[in-house]
């Protein structure tokens, strides 16, 4: 991997009025690697995503993209810099076909205005190919997205972000609504996206999902960073206990053994 990280956060902080939503967060994302952001509810994960995706600006610290400090004014700006966020609700229209959803808002066209039409065969073929590159063999691109399983829908969203030139992919809790098997499938897509040279930010509250795929772990708790570790610096059980606010769990264990 190159020495300059694709994306680098240095002591980032964010205030809403007098509320400290995020403070002292430092981590980095390398191309071809997965950085996992772990935290329980209310840990500041949403704020973290919103800063990266350009919804909010950070108030403290420095946010560097390929070594240059940046601050985004809008999600569109973030997107055009190559940071794509895949949110939980996935931004899909259930009654529309896979290929139409894949290209929605950026349809390839033929002809000239005003006689301009969608290049349907190109769109269908590209959607199928791009999905195949992610290791997903979609059965029929004319199928409505509403009939896909949760994991498949997730994969359409990821493949779409990759195709439209994302360098950094932010996945917001992609496995939280899925069953065990489906989660495994999505984790494979995450690795596949990283293998194709993207920097992936995987946000989750499940250390069992994060540990197998992550190269770097950022643990948030109540708006503060509890640590930023490379994979060889931490074990899965340490990760779990840190995430739950280790001390509290130990206290609970102590109480239980006494009781």
């Amino acid at each position, binding site marked *: 991997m190159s020495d300059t990280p694709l994306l680098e956060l240095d002591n980032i902080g964010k205030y809403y009025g007098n509320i400290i939503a995020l403070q002292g967060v430092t981590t980095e994302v390398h191309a071809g690697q997965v950085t996992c952001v772990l935290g329980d509810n209310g840990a500041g994960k949403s704020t973290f995503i919103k800063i990266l995706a350009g919804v909010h600006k950070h108030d403290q610290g420095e946010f560097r993209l390929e070594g240059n400090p940046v601050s985004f004014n809008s999600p569109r700006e973030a997107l055009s810099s190559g940071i794509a966020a895949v*949110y939980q609700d996935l931004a899909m*229209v*259930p009654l*529309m076909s896979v290929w139409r959803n894949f290209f*929605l*808002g*950026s349809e390839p066209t033929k002809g000239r205005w005003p006689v301009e039409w*969608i290049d349907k*065969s190109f769109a269908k073929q590209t959607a199928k190919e791009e999905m195949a590159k992610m290791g997903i063999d979609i059965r*029929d691109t004319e199928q409505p997205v509403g009939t896909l399983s949760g994991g498949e829908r997730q994969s359409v969203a990821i493949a779409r972000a990759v195709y439209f030139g994302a360098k950094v992919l932010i996945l917001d809790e992609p496995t939280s609504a899925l069953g065990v098997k489906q989660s495994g499938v999505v984790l494979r897509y995450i690795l596949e996206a990283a293998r194709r040279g993207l920097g992936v930010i995987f946000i989750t509250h499940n250390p069992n999902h994060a540990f197998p795929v992550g190269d770097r772990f950022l643990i948030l708790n109540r708006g503060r960073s509890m640590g930023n570790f490379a994979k060889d610096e931490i074990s899965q059980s340490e990760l779990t206990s840190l995430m739950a606010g280790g001390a509290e769990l130990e206290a609970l264990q102590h109480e239980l053994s006494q009781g």
Partner: protein
Amino acid sequence: MTTAAEASTGSNGSEETHDERLAYRGIFQRVLVRPEIGAVIAAVGVWVFFWAVAEPFGRASGAASILDVAASPLGIMAVAVAMLMIGGEFDLSSGAATGALGIVTILLVRDVSGEMAGAGFSLWVALPLSLAIALALGWFNGTMVNRTSLPSFIVTLGSFFVLKGAKLGFSKLIVEQIQVGTLDDLADYAETTGASDKGYGFLNTLFAAEWDRRSHIWEARDNIYLLGTFLGLALVIIGVFELHHRRAERGIPAGYAGAGLGLVSVLFGINTLHSTDSVSGNWTGSLLILAGMTVGLIGLSAARYHPLSDRSLALPTGAVTSFGLGVVALAGSIIAAAMIDSQNSENISWLGLVTVQGGRAILFVSLAGAALVLFLIGVNRARRSSIAGGGLLLAVTALSVAGTAFFVRAESQTPKFRTQAFSFMLMAAAIMLVWAIASMLFERRSSTGHERTGLALVGSGFVLALVGLGARLLYVTQSELDAGITKTGYSVRILWFAGFTAVCTWVLTRTRFGSWTYAVGGNKQASRQVGVPANRTKVQLFMLVSFAAWLVGVLLAFRLNTIQASTGDGEEFEYIIAAVVGGTALTGGYGSTLGAAIGAFIMAMSVQGIPSARWNSDWRFLFIGTILLLAAIGNNYIRGKAEAAR
């Protein structure tokens, strides 16, 4: 099944490759998931119903008036409203807008004193001006809906009343009555004073030209009609065969000779039918056609398609049960028809609506129809376990249809049934029989590749049939004219309707704007997140509706003697009904413009059919209401099936 073999043959050069996990959906299932299919079935059903009870149905004059009512204002508006509804919004002001824009156009041409001459604008100025007003109205509706985030139902209900009031108020203010005068005064004025007619002559041709059938004589018409419909039907059947069956790697080339022989036999049969009136001639002709169809299509199949590998005839109990019930229903219909006195034309006391004869016909048709449906359900159930068994049941069904046809001919009092219905049923039975034989001999296809040929055949078949039908409807022969026929005029409005529907359908299915329309109606939030200009799309949809209202208003202005201030008020619900009958979801995100156009036809048929059947036209609303409910339920059911099937 046979996927391995298919994979080796099915992918040479075809653009769509087959995925073996995807259960292949046959051509009929694929047609059934289209949103407009419910409307097509309903349209055929309604047409057949009125054909049986109303005299002008099946004549050119009936077709002309149905087309005219369907086209404008109903059809043009229904198509535009369907697009708006797919985009997730309603426009309750669309009905009032049609009248308002017609009035505006006329008032712009008049001068202040109310005279249709002098100081008013030329039509060349008035039309763009009223178009600009229309687009502004649509822009206002759309922008209000976007800005206030109120339901479009409320916003456009407001603009409906504003328009309604403005129409009345301005009409009274300017011309001091609630109707505005006619545009054809312009022509009179130009004639008497020698001044310019302000574009009336040319624009009248553009918006109100009429094709009078009686002044277009074409002796070859009947030949074109026969040739077009028969060849068209043949091409459609061959195309469906092509789409339905699996291509063989190596067929039997001799089959093509059989196909040629069959074609010759069919042509001979048609010629025999056409040139004789004797009973034996009719029999010879019909048998020649049947034999030709069978030999030809089976020959063609032998040459091109893979023979059926599994020929077991095991019938599941479910199939036997429904088939048995079908036999009971058919027997019941025949017994009932035979028992009721066919000569009795007295009214049945219940409501005085139907005669004994009519009641007999309704009883017979509904029981026989139920029998057919039960038979087909049986066939469908049988196919699940044994294709050949399904074919066998279908052959029996075909024979029973043929038998019923002869029963109808023997028993019916009306010439319509004795000749037209009889020959149609016989034709349908022949097609079913050949289909049944083919399905017992040849393999169905299991992938979507190689569809070009089949689709091209079906398409050109439809075009040919339309040409034949068009020739029949648009032209007369000298002998017909001598016998005296009623005046039948086709308005240019029909062309406007056809063109508008074609353009809207293209836009909806092929362009980005169409995709965005579905997207904003299906999930506005999501479409905005991926960069669809959701608000702009909605405003443009409202403007499309008001453009349609302008077009309809102008067509009205050129058509009617006067436009009343109330013209169009309340019609907006008819547009919505036509769209819903055509398969458009009230919730947005689903539907079709073609379906809306067909929905307009259904409405027009009920408008024309009820008086033609000599019923009180008040029944029309009951009829439309029933159709709306049935259509909504049917479409919902089909949509559920369609999504499950995918």
